[in-house]
């Protein structure tokens, strides 16, 4: 074969990698910053802490990454969890109100207990969601709507409608502290991501989750205990949201039942979708989700650095949602880039991103394909 064709096939392999588009968008967004902030990529050391735009993107994006990683697994089972924002609020509220009731807010044991209490509440929420979805067979979007609606009320109930502020050094560490020159929350995120990847790919959990999301009835008949897996996944998602809740309240040293984690469920779902996991379930990519969450955070930072008024943030976010979804839609690609490209990308090997909207059509297309084979 001639050289150009091998390069093109390599290029094709690269562009068809499931992380290609998310990473490309992220890199592009980062590069946009350079003309406005020439030292965008530089990282400085001050007071033994590293500073720089890249560090702050990861720092501010930490809660979102956490929530999105948990959400990825839920979405992979074919579900969705709308309650994570409320769980963030409940966890923060519970932990902060517990700490603020202590006489010595700085006591490590008290802080650990408070965090444990918050995370326990989060897991209970997750178990409830999992129970409704897996045991009662209620659609996930509806089942999790309940805590989404009621959860904020509960959080306000805990804080008595006030914003509870705490003054606790150990508690400050998770969301606002530094360790080994880096923000401590980066280590938390790294640990959670590592645990998630290990949990799903080192064990068979990932495969079973993808099977359950890919074909629920087939999974049941193959003996997968899908109820157990679903409950576990919702609990895990809530746990991630709980950690994010601790992080957010720790960062501001305050618990706000009304506004903590507001809309984070939507950002998280968005991050998952940008990361290339189909909302219909099945194949998932934790790495993609992390990149997706970073894209969202970078977007916020970029809007800030290029001097666009910050209130347009939401408009840009809307634009990104539309663009990403349109790019993932095989129908759009077929219409815009011509039938050839559309068909080629629809039929490509991995085709994960394309799989989502194409699947309903695949059912009706299956017959003729069998017929001609």
């Amino acid at each position, binding site marked *: 074969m001639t050289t150009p064709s091998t390069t093109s096939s390599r290029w094709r392999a690269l562009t068809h990698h499931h992380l290609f588009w998310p990473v490309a968008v992220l890199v592009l967004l980062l590069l946009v910053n350079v003309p406005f902030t020439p030292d965008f990529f530089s990282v400085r050391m001050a007071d033994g802490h590293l500073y720089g735009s890249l560090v702050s993107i990861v720092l501010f994006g930490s809660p979102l990454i956490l929530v999105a990683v948990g959400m990825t697994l839920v979405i992979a089972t074919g579900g*969705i969890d709308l309650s994570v924002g409320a769980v963030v609020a409940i966890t923060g509220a519970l932990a902060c109100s517990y700490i603020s009731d202590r006489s010595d807010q700085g006591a490590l044991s008290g802080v650990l207990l408070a965090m444990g209490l918050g995370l326990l509440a989060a897991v209970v929420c997750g178990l409830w969601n999992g129970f*409704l979805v897996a045991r*009662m*067979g*209620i*659609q996930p*979007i*509806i*089942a999790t*709507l*309940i*805590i*989404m*609606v*009621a*959860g*904020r*009320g*509960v959080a*306000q*109930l805990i804080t*008595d*409608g006030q914003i509870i502020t705490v003054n606790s050094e150990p508690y400050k560490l998770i969301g606002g502290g530094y360790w080994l020159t880096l923000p401590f929350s980066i280590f938390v995120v790294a640990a959670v991501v590592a645990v998630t990847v290990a949990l799903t790919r080192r064990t068979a959990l990932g495969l079973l989750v993808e099977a359950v999301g890919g074909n629920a009835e087939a999974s049941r008949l193959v003996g997968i205990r899908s109820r157990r897996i679903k409950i576990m996944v919702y609990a895990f998602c809530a746990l991630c949201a709980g950690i994010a809740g601790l992080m957010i309240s720790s960062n501001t040293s305050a618990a706000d*039942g009304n506004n903590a984690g507001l809309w984070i469920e*939507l950002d998280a*779902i*968005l991050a998952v*979708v940008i990361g290339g996991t189909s*909302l219909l379930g099945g194949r998932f990519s934790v790495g993609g989700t992390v990149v997706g969450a970073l894209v969202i955070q970078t977007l916020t930072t970029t809007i800030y650095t290029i001097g666009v*008024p910050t*209130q*347009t*943030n*939401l*408009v*840009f*976010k*809307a*634009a990104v*949602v*539309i663009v990403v*979804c*349109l790019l*993932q*839609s*095989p*129908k*759009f690609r077929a*219409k815009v880039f011509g039938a050839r490209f559309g068909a080629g990308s629809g039929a490509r090997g991995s085709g994960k991103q394309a799989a*989502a*909207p194409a699947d*309903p059509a695949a059912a*009706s297309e299956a017959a003729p394909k069998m017929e001609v084979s």
Partner: protein
Amino acid sequence: MSATTQSPTASGSRTPSTAGRLLGDRRLPVAVTALLFLVMYGVGLSRYQNYGFGEPQVFLNLFIDNGYLLVAAVGVTFVILSGGIDLSVGSMIGFTTMFTAWLVERQGLPIVVVIPMALAVGAFGGFLMGYVIHNFEIQPFIVTLAGLFLFRGLCLVISKESISIGDASVSSMAQAQVSLGMGFLSIGAIVSLVVLAVAFYVLHYTRFGRRVYAIGGNEQSAMLMGLPQGGTKIAVYTVSGFCSALAGLLFTLYIQSGDPLHATGMELDAIAAVVIGGTLLTGGSGYVLGTLFGVLVLGLIKSIIQFEGTLSSWWTKIATGVLLCAFILVQRFMTTRKKT
């Protein structure tokens, strides 16, 4: 190979049993919600009789205070009946309040010109979302989520600050009262009831309305039956956009200001009202009349909490969540019963 000699056998009765029919009747959830409303109202009467709960005006206030929610929920009913979902409702309402306030106060346009403009913008926004959902086969959840971001963002683009409306014609409209003998209704309440009536007619007496049910029942079938399912879907989101904008106008009248944070999360209230009103979130089954009762139940919760006095406002959310949960479980129970 099949045997040709087999004798025909009786295989189940052809007509459904009366009991099954009663349980499977799609009007049952509406009746349950109506009953719940009456019971709650009765409880309110017995507890707060001395505080004036029995006044007819307290009842009419439910319509006055929740007219905008009713209009928004009616729009959402269309979308949910068709098997979709619209998350952009709250943002659209917020945007309409900002848009209206800005045009009236900052640009000095008369409200009669602004009203059609706002409605057109809302309908067009809904149309765009429907267009993307249908033509590019992207899930409604995601597209309307983008709508949520977009319209909330546009609010902030107009102004970060709240704009209060001092326009005389607006305040006279807002304060206009229509006497009903035992009490009065506001213009907003009247408009919302008209919207309800129109929606009922459209859903039950026009081909468009029946197509909405058909698509919600089975979209694939609707397509194969030759129904213009794409147009219907786009229309449904246009209706929802229009209703949200109208709800936004009513909200503007009700609150007499535009604020970028108005109606945050109201899509949840609207969806909750629709579900409590007995409409299946999977689409194809439900009544717009149920949505009215759903809105009234939510409104009544607020009233009761006000009358109770000692309860804080967040109990509204908790109570809504609990009700939502109860109704979802009841729906679940009913649909499984129907299958077996």
